[in-house]
């Protein structure tokens, strides 16, 4: 691979890392600060992806869409749609321990997948949605990639700053209080269920936005583009390894895990075909094992959560 190819690959990777970083930030709001177990990340991602795709894509026969709405509207709608799915689920399940939310989110992700596959009039079925515009897509390949990277990086930065601000504010203190001792927080008059619902809905909206960025990057989306289990699980590992409860940790984890995951894919693709399929599943085994090892030996992650007021380095 020559230098230009390498640079291309690096930009490509950076864009995807940015998208995963948004997902990890969304999960950090839910899990890191509030202790909510969302096992259906891929579902919220897919809702965001398809919402923006349908609203902004070129017209096509046989499915809804082709409204060619402005991109920003599509992105906002993707956040609203993901939040709108999260709200009723959270409303029903957040009264109980997080196990119930986990079960329900697995279910909703599965149903979203069914809807995407079945309702061809809405989502194009297995053919998916194509003709999705890309900002600065009319430029040459490299400038266009770099422009997209700039957009993604800006959005990650904005999301990071907003979440950081929110976490340092009294709201963040309240959320941690609810996470760490629900009864005490309730006794102090905090509305536990309502606050949890807020966190769940905000986090899901961020996941929806990541979905929208993903489809505008690829210019198309098919049901196969989103593998529910792997996508969800990768993001969990990113957050846990990076450091749940620490936004910088979430972004770092996204970078580390995505690089390892893609490089291992490059390696296994070079294997002879007889073992390449098995190597593909062996990689899945290894990410499962990685989670166990992190949980066991470094549960606080690379960058542990910092309590405001305590010195940054211990």
């Amino acid at each position, binding site marked *: 691979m020559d230098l230009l190819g390498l640079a291309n690959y690096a930009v490509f990777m950076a864009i995807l890392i940015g998208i995963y970083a948004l997902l990890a930030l969304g999960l950090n709001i839910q899990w890191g600060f509030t*202790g909510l*177990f969302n*096992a259906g990340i891929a579902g919220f991602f897919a809702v965001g992806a398809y919402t923006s795709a349908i609203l902004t894509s070129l017209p096509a026969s046989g499915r809804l869409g082709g409204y060619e709405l402005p991109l920003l509207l599509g992105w906002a709608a993707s956040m609203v749609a993901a939040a709108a799915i999260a709200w009723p*689920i959270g409303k*029903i*399940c957040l*009264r*109980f*321990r*997080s*196990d*119930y939310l*986990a*079960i*329900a989110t*697995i*279910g*909703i992700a*599965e*149903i979203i997948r*069914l809807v995407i*596959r*079945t309702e061809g009039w809405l989502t194009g079925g297995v053919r998916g949605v194509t003709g999705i515009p890309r900002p600065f897509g009319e430029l040459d390949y490299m400038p266009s990639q770099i422009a997209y990277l700039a957009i993604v990086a800006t959005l990650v930065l904005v999301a990071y700053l907003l979440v950081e601000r929110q976490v340092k504010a009294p709201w963040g203190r309240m959320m941690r209080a609810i996470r760490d001792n629900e009864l005490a927080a309730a006794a102090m008059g905090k509305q536990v269920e309502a606050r949890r619902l807020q966190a769940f809905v905000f986090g899901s909206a961020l996941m929806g936005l990541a979905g929208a960025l993903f489809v505008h990057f690829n210019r198309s989306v098919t049901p196969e583009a989103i593998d529910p*289990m792997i996508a969800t*699980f990768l993001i*969990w590992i990113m957050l*846990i390894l990076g450091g749940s409860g620490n936004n910088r940790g979430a972004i770092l984890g996204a970078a580390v895990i995505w690089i390892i995951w893609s490089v291992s894919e490059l390696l296994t693709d070079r294997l002879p075909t007889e073992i390449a*399929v*098995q190597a593909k*599943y*062996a990689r*899945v*085994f290894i*990410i*499962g*094992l990685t*989670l*166990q090892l992190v*949980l*066991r030996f470094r*549960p606080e992650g690379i960058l542990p959560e910092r309590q405001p007021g305590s010195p940054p380095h211990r």
Partner: protein
Amino acid sequence: MSFLEFLNFHLVPGVVLGSIYAVGAIGITLVFGILRFAHFAHGDMATLGAFVALALVTAGLTPWAALPIAMAAVAVVAIVVDKLFYDYLKARPKIMTVMASLGVALMLRAVVQVVFGVDPRTYATGIVRPDEYFGILLRDRELYTLAAVVLLVVGLSLFLRHSRWGKAMRAMSDNPDLARLSGVDNRKVTMLTWAIVGALCAASGFMLGINNELHSMMGWQVLLPMFAAAILGGVGRVEGAVLGGLIVGIAEEMSIFILPAQYKAATAFVLLLLILLVRPRGLLNGKVL
């Protein structure tokens, strides 16, 4: 549609499917009730059991002779998984164990995919014609499945009700601290629970496989109906899990009257949300965690 048609094409398949769900849901309800967490590797443990039985069948055993061996094998796997991946998380919030179990689910599935591949398999080839019993059409394998489920459920209920260890399990489910104070060894009860849960997993996976086909995602796909069944019946209640399993199974088969067939899998989810909304303790008054 005549009554018999309704019976043969909807009710009987629903009961067969429901009794398989029941076996899985009993395992889930035991873990949920005694060890107090949602065990997400349950479905994939069932897949593993089904494929262990397949390996034995390929080696020359008949399917139903392979079942007990597969149950014993997965019981051992379940104990080992607990020792390696769940046990050390005991003192941390239970939700960490839930996460670890999601990782185990992925690992178990990957093992099946590496060893057995991803193509659908069956225990026996060829079409089996159903026999007629007073107008009801039943295949041998369906009859054996129902008999095996009844045997497992009755055996387990007797064990839990009358044996020393069964009582210890129920005590730990009711109140672990009180149980420990009364001399119940929580460690041994945990091990015993995993042995039973592993065996039940293997049984449910095997029965899914023999009534349909085996593939590496089969267990993950039945995880949601099994959880719905366990919660519907009431967490910690074995009879509840059986009742819930039957309701979910029958409801799935009936769902085609009101939903397009592709959304059969959504039935369990709807039931789950409904019961959480209306009566989170479940039909038979289980626990709410």
